[in-house]
């Protein structure tokens, strides 16, 4: 068992596609949202969208932390990185995200700012240990998968008494964003996104379990299937949702049982509860202000909070007016609906955040399907 090849079998995928085609009710339409950007990427990469019945549409969700980070928060990180004596540590996918005036963490580094790309939060702690004369700041972004590592880094720094380590915390919470999408976003001009089912994020769920999704089945009548990331995982989860819809049921089902326990990871959840506190509200790109949707450091660890240690103005920065990343993130628009898509905005020179991370819906569409529309237009 290698844990991946078994779940990539082509003939089984064909069988699942046939089951989907046979069981899809031709008299109705299905719209399922895959919340997680990793799922979006897998759907495109493996060509799964072509295996789905014509009346079943996948709506791409906001589960891409780089994409939902408001530009204002990124500006804070860039400003911090440019201060003398500060080393800013960040995961690689955030370095290229465009802020205002063409700035990014990458361009700040080119101008001499000390920006370090890390692959583990503990590398930032190690750097703080090695460079006691510098202020080492971890630019922490991500959902519940990336949060426990940040918590562990903070506890370790506290244990070692590393006074020069701090965290610029932008960790966000999956269930709050799901609730916002199902409850609808406020604001004029937003197209209502009708979702018949949710493909739940498998790796987030290894931490939080399946219980937090129960409210979506119970209170919103929305079926949920927590899925793995291989092609058969996704097809099976979609079939589970389709069967629930056809039967008029709404429940939380677990497709990714090999990695997810219904109760989640107790060690990780306890750690998060010790180190973090809930923010009253947080701005999400595309979703606007979402109540109780993000974390900050708990009082006990306030000394490690970069927002308290440094005077960081909260900048409100508008997106490029032509960019529709906000609509794409809510599932209200598809990437080719954007005038900038594949013209002014490409993965090499992204204007919007959805084009930056490979998990962003625009980057995935660009990589795998950007010629589709032309092909359809050329068809007789």
């Amino acid at each position, binding site marked *: *068992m*290698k*844990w*991946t090849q*078994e*779940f990539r079998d082509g*003939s*089984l*995928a*064909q*069988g*699942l596609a*046939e*089951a989907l085609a046979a069981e899809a009710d031709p008299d109705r339409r299905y719209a399922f949202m895959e919340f*997680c*950007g*990793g799922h979006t990427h897998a759907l495109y990469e493996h060509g799964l969208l072509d295996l789905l019945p014509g009346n079943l549409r996948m709506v791409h969700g906001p*589960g*891409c*932390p*780089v994409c939902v980070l408001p530009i204002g928060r990124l500006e804070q990180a860039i400003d911090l990185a440019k201060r003398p004596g500060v080393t800013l540590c960040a*995961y690689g*996918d955030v370095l290229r995200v465009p802020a205002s005036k063409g700035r990014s963490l990458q361009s700040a580094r080119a101008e001499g700012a000390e920006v370090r790309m890390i*692959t*583990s*939060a*503990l*590398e930032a702690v190690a750097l703080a240990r090695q460079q006691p004369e510098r202020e080492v700041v971890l630019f922490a*972004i*991500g*959902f519940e*998968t*990336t949060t*426990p*590592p940040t918590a*562990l880094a903070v506890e370790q720094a506290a244990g070692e008494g590393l006074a020069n380590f701090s965290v610029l915390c932008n960790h966000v919470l999956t269930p709050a964003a799901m609730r916002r999408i199902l409850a609808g976003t406020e604001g004029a001009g937003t197209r209502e996104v009708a979702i018949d089912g949710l493909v739940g*994020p498998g*790796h*987030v769920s*290894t*931490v939080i379990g399946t219980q937090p999704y129960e409210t979506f089945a119970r209170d919103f009548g929305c079926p949920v299937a927590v899925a793995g990331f291989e092609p*058969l*995982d996704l097809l*099976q989860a979609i*079939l589970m949702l389709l069967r629930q819809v056809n039967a008029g049921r709404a429940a939380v089902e677990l*497709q*990714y*049982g*090999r*990695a*997810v*326990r219904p109760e989640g*990871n107790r*060690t*990780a959840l306890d*750690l998060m509860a010790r180190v973090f506190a809930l923010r009253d509200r947080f701005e999400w790109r595309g979703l606007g202000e979402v109540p109780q949707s993000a974390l900050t450091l708990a009082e006990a660890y306030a000394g490690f909070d970069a927002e308290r240690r440094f005077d960081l103005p909260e900048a409100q920065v508008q997106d490029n007016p032509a960019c529709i990343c906000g609509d794409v993130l809510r599932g209200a628009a598809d990437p080719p609906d954007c005038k900038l898509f594949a013209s002014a905005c490409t993965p090499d020179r992204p204007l919007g955040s959805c084009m930056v*991370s490979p*998990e962003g819906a625009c980057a995935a569409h660009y990589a795998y399907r950007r010629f589709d529309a032309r092909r359809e237009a050329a068809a007789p």
Partner: protein
Amino acid sequence: MCLAVPGLIVAKSGDTGTVSFDGVRQDCSLALVPEAEAGDYVIVHVGFALSRLDPDEAERTLALLREAAGETGAGARP
């Protein structure tokens, strides 16, 4: 960002494990999965194992997959 990959723990020392990803070895933190031991497969994300993989559950999922795909069991295919 939530990209996580399965790997095999080949050695464990305290909270740290040497994890093999199809032969590529890397040190990862096992602090979040204290129950994991050498010989276990874990899901690793940004240098941290998040979950121990359960072979029985994997077999159960594969059996359900085969059933849904119209195959009657493991013996149905040549």
